[in-house]
């Protein structure tokens, strides 16, 4: 078996609710695989299944050559995890957090100490080595959590919404680090609902909703398979009225959301020409992106 991780028809129910429904994915070595989906789509439950923290009700799962959950312990020896919520040890310093965590992987203190400089450097935390956790910024905590996930030099890294709540600077630094990891041949599985993150980092993606994978492929494939290549967004008070009368003539598909109209087209020229006759309307013409795919597949309604 070549795949680093392969899951076949995984299923997990809580009571009558099917949280993960016949999920099948396969990860190749060195790729970054993204799991996209709105809140409550089943992303975190999927990660917990893949790590062997909960047992599936049906399906088969192999992680790094080990059957999971039966041999999850062996599999997790070679896995790193960045959880959604920071769970660093608040009583410890930065270095102590890494030391204590490394011991859970059977590492000797000397072996962990030897890895510390490299890990701190990777996390840009060399100068914070002896700082207490409550004194760190949100970005620093995330970077430390990432460094902690690397303490055992894992082959696979699971990241659950790694950049949620970070400012753009902090986010870009994390992205850069994650690209370095895939360049080193590590396999990454990340969940996110930032389309930009998915588009920039992921070689392949799966869009999840209501526990099911509804589309899978590279970012380009997802766009090509699911949506027209160009988008014209039309704004203004009269946009909705205009769309009612004219949009269908020039666009393959359009969606109205408040005072914006999203027109999806194969060729934008006729539509742009039409818009010249309506000086009251503002518009943006851009290529279709993952967010368009995501909204098409999972709908525009709020998930709460």
């Amino acid at each position: 078996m070549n795949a680093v991780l392969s899951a076949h028809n995984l299923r997990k129910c809580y009571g009558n609710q099917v949280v993960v429904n016949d999920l099948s994915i396969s990860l190749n070595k060195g790729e970054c695989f993204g799991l996209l989906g709105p809140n409550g789509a089943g992303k975190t439950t999927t990660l917990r299944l893949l790590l062997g923290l909960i047992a599936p009700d049906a399906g088969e799962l192999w992680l790094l050559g080990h059957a999971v959950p039966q041999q999850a312990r062996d599999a997790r020896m070679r896995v790193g995890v960045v959880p959604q919520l920071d769970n660093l040890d608040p009583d410890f310093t930065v270095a102590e957090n890494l030391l204590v965590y490394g011991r859970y992987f059977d590492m000797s203190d000397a072996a962990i100490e030897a890895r510390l400089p490299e890990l701190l450097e990777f996390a840009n935390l060399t100068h914070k080595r002896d700082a207490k956790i409550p004194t760190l910024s949100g970005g620093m905590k995330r970077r430390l959590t990432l460094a902690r996930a690397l303490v055992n030099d894992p082959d696979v890294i699971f990241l659950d919404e790694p950049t949620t709540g970070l400012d753009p600077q902090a986010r870009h630094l994390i992205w850069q680090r994650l690209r370095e990891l895939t360049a080193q041949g590590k396999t990454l599985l990340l969940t996110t609902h930032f389309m930009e993150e998915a588009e920039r980092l992921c070689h392949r993606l799966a869009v999840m909703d209501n526990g099911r994978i509804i589309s899978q492929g590279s970012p380009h494939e997802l766009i090509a398979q699911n949506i027209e290549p160009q988008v014209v967004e039309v704004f203004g008070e009269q946009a909705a009225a205009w769309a009612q009368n004219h949009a269908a003539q020039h666009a393959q598909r359009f969606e109205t959301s408040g005072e914006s109209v999203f027109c999806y087209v194969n060729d934008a020229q006729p539509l742009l020409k039409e818009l010249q006759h309506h000086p009251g309307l503002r518009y943006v013409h851009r290529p279709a992106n993952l967010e368009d795919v995501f909204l098409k597949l999972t709908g525009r309604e709020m998930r709460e």
Partner: protein
Amino acid sequence: MKKTDFALPEFSLRFIPIWQRHFLVWKKMAATSILGHLADPLIYMLGLGLGLGSLLPEMGGTSYLVFLSAGTVCYSTMNSATFEALYSCFARMHEQRTWDAIMNTPVTLDDIVLSEILWAASKSLLSGLAVLAVIWAMGLSHSVLSIWLIPLSLLIGLCFASLGLIMTAMAPSYSFFMYYFTLVITPTMFLSGVFFPVTRLPAWLQSVSAVLPLSHAVEIARPLMNGILPPCLLLNLSVLLGYTLFGYYMSLVLFRKRLSQ
């Protein structure tokens, strides 16, 4: 509940690094912790022993202070294990999510529960040692047999840590623990012969006392303190061990259920 929740504990040595983690946290505030272990039991022991003791005749051939000292070792070890297993464990499980972080490694929930019991018992051992040191320094016990109160402290710790974890596994929040202290721990303290002989209780309360683990601990501790071998040692030890195993298994089952959600 699933069938797998009821599986027997899976033992491994991976509880050691978790114990080390707790020890490292403890080391950072060792001074205040030791003071806490000492201050409360000593104030009660000396306050009641000297104050109330001056009004009382000898009890079983010893002064009231000597009588009280054996009980104090037992109830203070019970308290320190209970506090650790309730408040500190709940913080690690629920608030700091330390358990979540640990379970993402090759360490499993079974290892964590074992480490929590052993850690709480370690704190009990320390608490017992602290009180014993004062007892010996004050010359309240001259018997070599009193050394056996050291392993007894550990056993009491294991027992009440395991029982306390059952509460932690069921607790929605910290305030839940008040019930356990008010309805279980405090009555246990008064019914187990810590402050006065169980024989002073009405018959029906004596039957209640007979099934309480702390009564059996006191029945071991008090004779040893006076240089006598406990008459029902085997029974007493079996009861303490039985409660320990029951608590360990029950709490593990409940934690498995809680954390598989």
